């Protein structure tokens, strides 16, 4: 499934995780000394780690239990074994990872086959040790993604948000993963970075060896490994054509987003990093409708300080040049949680302690971020947005804390904008159904369709087996959006939509017809959406949306919208 358009041709870079099979990969004879060094390094690191573990275990669990580490350490000291791994690297020219895996698994298998009752258990220890060694070998490689010297296409089973964050700063031209769906976090980031991406390609990370030439075709959702000359030439031509299309869209950037009947529509960008503000402005965006602040938390091992927040926010505000920026407070959700921070695994993380709920239980963390946003509020048009609000009580609690932080700043004589606009995300059915009430206590709404669809249709968008059921075209979702927009109008507050739906040209006419006037999307989509807006009148859009309300299935709705969009703005799809 293609989740981010474009085509990339580059050499493959396989990002492995400890749970997955290590591909059989050979190296050239002159790489042997490097691989041997990597192995010895991993052995030494593992030994240090195990010795520390044993010391701690002796203190905490007693010498008896701690002796399990003796066996692991004993195996690491086994010269014959290490020589065997060395020989596998040197004689067969296999990578250190693959050599470790084959040799250790060979022994583990031998243990498993023994009839003796105690030895098969040792196989578990061997697997454990294998994992430890691989982690050190791969850990070392993982870091190098930041120091790439050539352009690559990354292939992985899955990418964690922090790995994806690294991609932003490196020479990654495209990526493909074994799992994932259209709205998985990695897909969102890929689109934000304008990197072609294909997800849900079973076993791609296993089938490709690092160094293979890889074509990632995000338009058709295809990955080609070691293409022949003909295919390569065809794709090169394709890339040139695509660049021409991009160029055409760039020209749209300077034109206003006005409907055929002269109504101005506001198009804003969703961003993760301050440096992306520039690309929103380049595409002709009217501001930042969603600044996701999570990456401040995910990018580093420690919690960001107030000063770190403020530095990032100030950079974004300066780049926006007076245009509005909506700062969404920490929205760490189940799918974005970094492993290191997760204290207790939850049975149902999407319904668990995430987002505003987490903030309200971790006040020092929440206050630090609020202080920084408020301090930044004097530097430009800053707005605060609270995610995952489900009730007025939660909203009031959060507002009390904001008021509290304001008081602190006042006492400390730190300037901030007392009238800073405070809004909420409408992304749960409960918020959507009570929008009329919530609207009385906030300055704006932003509809988060990704979560709204997930919670309304009860579909986990990252689960590939049910991902096809995830669609904003479901009549229930369309009805909720309509009602939210109506509630906003009645209350006289602004409503924007910042989910994936805003950047999908198939839905532009429907949303205009339902009354949406502010769209916020990943920056590369802005010109395409503008093209649809400029081709349609509000009158026509309203007619189409009324028709949509009469349909009873998402299929019917989507087909109809596609057909109409193709007729009105043929080049947009």
């Amino acid at each position: 499934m293609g989740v981010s358009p474009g085509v990339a041709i580059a050499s493959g870079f396989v990002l492995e995780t400890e749970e997955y099979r290590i591909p059989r990969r050979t190296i050239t004879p002159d790489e042997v000394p490097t691989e041997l060094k990597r192995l010895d390094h991993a052995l030494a690191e593992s030994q240090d780690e195990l010795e520390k573990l044993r010391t701690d275990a002796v203190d905490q669990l007693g010498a008896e239990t701690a002796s399990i580490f003796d066996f692991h350490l004993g195996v690491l000291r086994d010269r014959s074994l290490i020589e065997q791994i060395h020989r596998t690297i040197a004689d067969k020219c296999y990578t250190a990872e693959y050599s470790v895996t084959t040799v250790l698994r060979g022994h583990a298998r031998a243990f498993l086959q023994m009839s003796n009752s105690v030895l098969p258990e040792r196989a578990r220890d061997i697997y454990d040790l294998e994992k430890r060694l691989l982690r050190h070998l791969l850990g070392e490689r993982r870091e190098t993604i930041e120091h790439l010297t050539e352009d690559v296409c990354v292939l992985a089973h899955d990418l964690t948000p922090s790995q994806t964050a690294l991609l932003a700063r490196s020479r990654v031209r495209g990526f493909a993963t074994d799992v994932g769906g259209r709205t998985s976090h990695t897909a969102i980031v890929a689109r934000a970075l304008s990197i072609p991406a294909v997800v849900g390609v079973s076993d791609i990370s296993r089938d490709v060896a690092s160094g293979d030439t890889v074509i990632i075709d995000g338009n058709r959702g295809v990955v080609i490994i070691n293409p022949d000359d003909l295919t390569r030439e065809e794709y090169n031509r394709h890339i040139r054509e695509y660049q021409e299309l991009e160029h055409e869209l760039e020209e749209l950037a300077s034109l206003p987003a006005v409907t055929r009947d002269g109504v101005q529509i506001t198009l804003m960008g969703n961003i993760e990093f301050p440096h992306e503000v520039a690309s929103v402005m380049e595409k002709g965006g009217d501001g930042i409708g969603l600044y996701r602040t999570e990456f401040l938390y995910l990018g580093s091992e420690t919690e960001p300080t107030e000063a770190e927040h403020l530095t990032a926010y100030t950079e974004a505000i300066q780049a926006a040049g007076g245009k509005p920026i909506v700062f969404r407070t920490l929205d760490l959700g189940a799918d974005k949680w970094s492993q290191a921070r997760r204290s207790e695994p939850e049975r149902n993380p999407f319904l668990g302690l995430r987002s505003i709920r987490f903030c309200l239980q971790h006040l020092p963390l929440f206050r630090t971020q609020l202080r920084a946003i408020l301090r930044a509020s004097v530097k430009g048009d800053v707005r605060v947005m609270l995610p995952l609000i489900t009730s007025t009580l939660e909203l009031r609690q959060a507002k009390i804390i904001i008021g509290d932080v304001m008081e602190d700043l006042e006492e400390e004589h730190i300037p901030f904008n007392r009238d800073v606009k405070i809004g909420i995300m409408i992304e749960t059915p409960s918020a959507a159904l009570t929008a009329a009430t919530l609207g009385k206590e906030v300055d704006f709404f932003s509809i988060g369709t990704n979560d709204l669809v997930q919670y309304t249709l009860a579909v986990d968008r990252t689960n590939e087996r049910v991902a096809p059921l995830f669609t904003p075209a479901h009549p229930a979702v369309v009805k909720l959006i309509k009602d939210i927009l109506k509630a906003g109008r009645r209350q006289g507050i602004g409503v924007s939509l910042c989910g994936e739906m805003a950047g999908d040209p198939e839905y532009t006419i429907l949303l205009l017809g339902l009354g949406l006037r502010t769209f916020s999307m990943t920056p590369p989509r802005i010109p395409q959406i503008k093209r649809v807006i400029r081709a349609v009148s509000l009158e026509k859009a309203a007619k189409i949306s009324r028709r949509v309300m009469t349909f009873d299935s998402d299929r019917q709705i989507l087909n109809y919208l596609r057909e109409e969009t193709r007729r009105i703005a043929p080049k947009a799809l």
Partner: protein
Amino acid sequence: MAEATCEVTICNKLGLHARPAMAFVDVASKFSSAIQVVKGKETVDGKSIMQMLLLAATQGTQLTLRADGDDAAEALNALTALVRRKFDEE
């Protein structure tokens, strides 16, 4: 340089499982001599925990210990004593 050989019988109940094998390897590794352990047609490195375990020597198994080096005799004395003490397990 000297070479020494002797026969031992594994007499502890659980045989040469992880902990006794570790103890054997630890003692063997204190000596500079090369240590080989023979069970039937199999010959393994007495300083390798993995190989010692793969011998799967159960109670009653006859092993031939072979040492080759300056401290061969001392090594075999220490190792046979360890086996006879049932690896200090029982």
